[in-house]
């Protein structure tokens, strides 16, 4: 047994923990919110901007072709108001809803949360989204302005653009992935997981099959919680090739012949391993992974 994989496993766990934040409900339960990554945030923003563009385009088409000729003035006024509302209130209106997320955020599965654990107030949502004006639209405005008129020197434009871009990328420079708007609104964006209830694959031992392989305590003592849950993932995925590899690895490890039904072998091993480890858990013994010595 070498130290390197143990360090790797520890690092992986640390990475997972680095994104988790304590969030204790009044009932005293820590919900362990997980900060959404910059990639998720950016994809949500792209989806929202695309949707806004599509809506703007559709409304423009309707106003240009759908209205009688005489209504041109009113149509232009309507378009201006629509553009203004879309630009400033798309994010605000959606984030005030019960799911506190724009369509883009919903699609990638994230939501806005008040940092202090309290209610998400209208004021916070307005503040965090008006700052967006500076983060997204100001760099664009600088670019457009500098292309239009060369009153200012190139150096000034480059510097200004750099400055606004640094502000826009603010969320890359802090652990909590807060952009300027989150800072001022007192919010952060976390994963809003929605998972369906899955079948209980560990409890089939209530009706054991006659030909199910039985494992000795020594054979069950080679793994920890991490390996158990990876095995659970493999079983739930239903990838035959992957199952074969995993089953053969386990067979080699515990010294069994490399033959037999993989599915049956794996689920029997999983059930007995889980039963054994859950019993240990009740006695206060928790073995995080296979590199830890059994207690």
């Amino acid at each position, binding site marked *: 047994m070498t130290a390197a994989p143990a360090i790797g496993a520890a690092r992986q766990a640390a990475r997972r923990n680095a994104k988790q934040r304590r969030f204790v409900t009044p009932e005293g339960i820590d*919900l362990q919110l997980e900060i959404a990554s910059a990639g998720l945030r950016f994809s949500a923003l792209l989806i929202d901007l695309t949707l806004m563009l599509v809506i703007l385009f559709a409304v423009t088409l309707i106003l240009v072709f759908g209205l009688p000729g005489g209504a041109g003035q009113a149509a232009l006024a309507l378009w201006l108001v629509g553009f203004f509302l879309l630009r400033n209130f798309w994010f605000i209106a959606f984030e005030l809803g019960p799911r506190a997320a724009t369509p883009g955020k919903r699609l990638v599965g994230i939501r806005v949360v008040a940092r202090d654990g309290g209610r998400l107030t209208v*004021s916070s949502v307005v503040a965090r989204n008006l700052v967006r004006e500076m983060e997204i639209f100001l760099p664009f405005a600088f670019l457009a302005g500098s292309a239009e008129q060369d009153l200012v020197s190139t150096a000034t434009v480059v510097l200004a653009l750099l400055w606004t871009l640094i502000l826009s990328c603010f969320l890359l420079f802090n652990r909590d992935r807060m952009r300027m708007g989150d800072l001022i609104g007192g919010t952060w964006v976390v994963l809003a997981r929605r998972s369906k209830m899955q079948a209980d694959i560990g409890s089939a031992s209530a009706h054991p099959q006659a030909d199910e392989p039985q494992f000795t305590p020594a054979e069950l003592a080679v793994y920890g919680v991490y390996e158990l849950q990876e095995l659970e993932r493999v079983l739930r995925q239903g990838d035959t090739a992957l199952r074969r590899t995993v089953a053969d690895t386990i067979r080699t490890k515990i010294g069994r012949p490399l033959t037999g039904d993989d599915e049956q072998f794996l689920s029997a091993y999983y059930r007995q391993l889980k039963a054994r480890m859950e019993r240990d858990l*009740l006695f206060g013994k928790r073995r995080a992974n296979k590199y830890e010595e059994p207690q």
Partner: protein
Amino acid sequence: MPASASVAYSTAAFRREREGDWQAFEALVERLERGSISRLSDEDLLALPRLYRATLSSLSLARATSLDAALVAYLEALSMRGYFLLYGVRESRLARFARFFAVSWPAAVRSLWRETIIIALLLALGTAASWWLVANDPAWFHALIPAELASGREPGASAAALRETVYGKPDHDGLSIFATFLFTHNSQVSITAYALGFAFGVPSMMLIFYQGLPLGALLSVFWDAGLGPDFIAWLSIHGTTELFAAILAGACGLRIGTAVAFPGPRDRLAAAADAGKQSGAAMLGVIIMLLCAGLLEGFARQLVQSMPMRFAVGGGMLAFWLAYFYVPRHTVRDTQL
């Protein structure tokens, strides 16, 4: 292996006994997320907190005793959705809307009074400076006002021509477009002034100072032609509302800037968040004020032609805003929206 089999049976039983509650809670949450709370029946409403607490208690049990990762993940996700629904918004949209106008907006503006005075003084300073410059040397005028904004109102123009710009028929045919354009443009400028506030308030203050420059330059030109009061009346009809809104936007920006620069006993993050919460409601109000200003500028200014009437409208609007924001009244303590 009889011992481990009986233990395995107990975590399975834990799930079997409780999964009915979880699924009932999930169904309720699903319905609540889609629509309003009024769609739930009385039984559902009574069951909601019980099911929520049952789910949370199952979560802490599962974390301690179960190694089924999918089950713990399911309970965590469900508890989080439930928490934010139950502890999230507790009022209907209509009630929040009413409370915004009755309490939150004036309270937010009132809490900004120090910043409001500073920003108003800056605007006055910008106006006075550019007036003084143009009065001493008319060449400054063209440096302060772009040609397309001036549109003939420059030093040396005849009094008749200047009078025409104040009382004449508007040269644009679409009043509504003009009003909308002004509204959206001014709002965007105000929002930018606010958003830039965190840089210690400096950009907000500069933006407000610059807004005073064309004002002072034009004032100087009209004053020299003996049309000072006429110009002020023409401007005041929407200007009292619009400039007030601009001042408030700058004040919001300055509040955030000072909170970031001088957080006091709190840490910088908490100070910024507090300032953001106070100013957010005020900024929503600024946009509403600018909408009023756009309407006044687009319609009322061309329809009301006499100087006293213009003063009456402009002064009336100013009196209205001042009374709405600053007249003391009995308010509820909780100003959270």
